[in-house]
């Protein structure tokens, strides 16, 4: 058995200097009309991934930019060896614009248009042939020892219960601090679920400007609830959160904020934006699990830690998601979906730090190739946070 050094993992080095932990060929449909053809290619060609979405046309302004940034970021994620960008031809988000941006990273990029190819079957044929060649090339690349400082680790909680803030989230906070200590990057996100805990994070900001931005993005998220004219509690906390003992959004937020550990907050980045700094960063995303997950992977997260008290199947086509239960009952009940258990903290069997160490060991194993349960179950969730109407 190879003894993995605690400080390193076996990853794939990319032409732009980044490090991947998977070696996928991505079929990237830049328009909803191309998603079915993209999924057909993944059925034909081993080693390819794709996803279904409903975006890419009749979008304008910031909403257009955010969706474009997500497409680009997903393709640029270091877990992706190369990309077949698949467009229709007439849409707002032009496949060729996404492809030319992606090509700058130095990774293999090919472009296929359904209209140019003369229809679905010819586009699938061309895409599959290009993908098959790319997959074989990808298979020749070997894993090499890489430093933890190369990692961008996304943190997320979904289906929270009252244990989230007591067990799994503080344990993930410990891991977040360890990753930062190793020189890596940890992403905190889900701005909605930090409403009520923002003062604690603002205190940890590295500059007055970052602290000011904390309050700005919180206010903007809260204003969205105001503009709807409803109590945000009608949607968040969710019915399952309430059943688990969480009464208010503030209570949920104070538990969720534990995922950020104790490190200084280096910067706040927009949805699907790549961090410019190492250390703890906050990506401005909604609390909706899949939109948040997609945003973080588009920001370059190679791996995501996901805590859950109610239990979710969540996974990503791009990045392995390690799911951590907040209570032991869930770990036993939904063992098909949950990778690690932090419920032992509630029972007094383990400490927050010892569970944190166990999670870090799992990160190193997964980064070196061990599959997560969501990967094994092909749980390829994908959703882009839309911030404007469709026209």
């Amino acid at each position, binding site marked *: 058995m190879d003894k993995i050094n605690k400080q390193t993992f076996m990853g794939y080095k990319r032409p732009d200097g980044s490090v991947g932990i998977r070696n996928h060929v991505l079929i990237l449909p830049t328009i909803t009309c191309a998603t079915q053809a993209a999924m057909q290619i993944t059925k034909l060609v081993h080693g390819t991934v794709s996803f279904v979405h409903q975006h890419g046309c009749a979008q304008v302004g910031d909403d257009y930019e955010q969706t474009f940034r997500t497409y680009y970021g997903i393709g640029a994620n270091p877990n992706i060896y190369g990309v077949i960008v698949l467009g229709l031809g007439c849409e707002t988000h032009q496949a060729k614009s996404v492809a030319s941006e992606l090509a700058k990273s130095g990774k293999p990029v090919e472009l296929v248009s359904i209209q140019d190819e003369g229809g679905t079957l010819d586009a699938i044929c061309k895409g599959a042939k290009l993908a098959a060649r790319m997959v074989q090339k990808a298979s020749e690349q070997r894993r090499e020892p890489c430093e933890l400082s190369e990692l961008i680790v996304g943190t997320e909680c979904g289906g929270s*219960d009252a244990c989230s803030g007591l067990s799994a989230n503080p344990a993930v906070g410990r891991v977040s601090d360890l990753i930062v200590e190793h020189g890596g990057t940890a992403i905190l996100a889900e701005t909605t679920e930090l409403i*009520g805990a923002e003062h604690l994070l603002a205190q940890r900001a590295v500059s007055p400007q970052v602290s000011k931005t904390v309050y700005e993005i919180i206010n903007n998220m809260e204003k969205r609830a*105001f503009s709807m004219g409803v*109590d945000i509690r009608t949607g968040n906390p969710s019915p399952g959160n309430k059943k688990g003992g969480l009464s*208010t*959004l*503030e209570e949920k937020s104070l538990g969720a904020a534990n995922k950020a550990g104790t490190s200084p907050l280096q910067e706040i980045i927009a949805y699907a934006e790549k961090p410019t700094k190492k250390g703890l960063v906050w990506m401005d995303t909604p609390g909706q699990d899949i939109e948040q997950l997609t945003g973080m992977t588009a920001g370059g997260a190679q791996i995501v830690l996901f805590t859950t008290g109610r239990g979710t199947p969540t996974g990503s086509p791009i990045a392995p998601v390690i799911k951590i239960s907040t209570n032991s009952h869930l770990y036993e009940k939904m063992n098909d979906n949950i990778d690690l258990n932090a419920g032992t903290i*509630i029972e007094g069997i383990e400490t927050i730090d010892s569970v944190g160490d166990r999670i870090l060991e799992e990160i190193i194993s997964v980064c070196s190739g061990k599959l997560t349960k969501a990967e094994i179950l092909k749980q390829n969730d994908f959703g882009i946070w839309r911030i404007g109407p469709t026209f």
Partner: protein
Amino acid sequence: MTKTNFNFVVLNAKDNVAVALEEIPSEVTVLVTDPTGDYEIIVKDTIQFGHKFAIKTICNADYVVKYGEIIGRSMRKIEPGEHVHIHNLEGNRGRGDQIGQNQ
């Protein structure tokens, strides 16, 4: 044999609620440890795993405190031992329903 020793946690000395770490039946007496002197309270409702109960009297419209932080405001007077949840605790944040009412 009746179990009397139930697991719960008070997360911060400022808190006026405790979190049950197992289901606690009503009418059970629990001992709350406190820097100013430990005291007993009778749990008034069945408290499910993960749910909260008051460990101090919480007046109407008073802050409910957990993790040492405000998690919302009581909607009526809450006695020690009562279940604290959405029936007697409301959030202060994201209250689009109150726009125009208290501004």
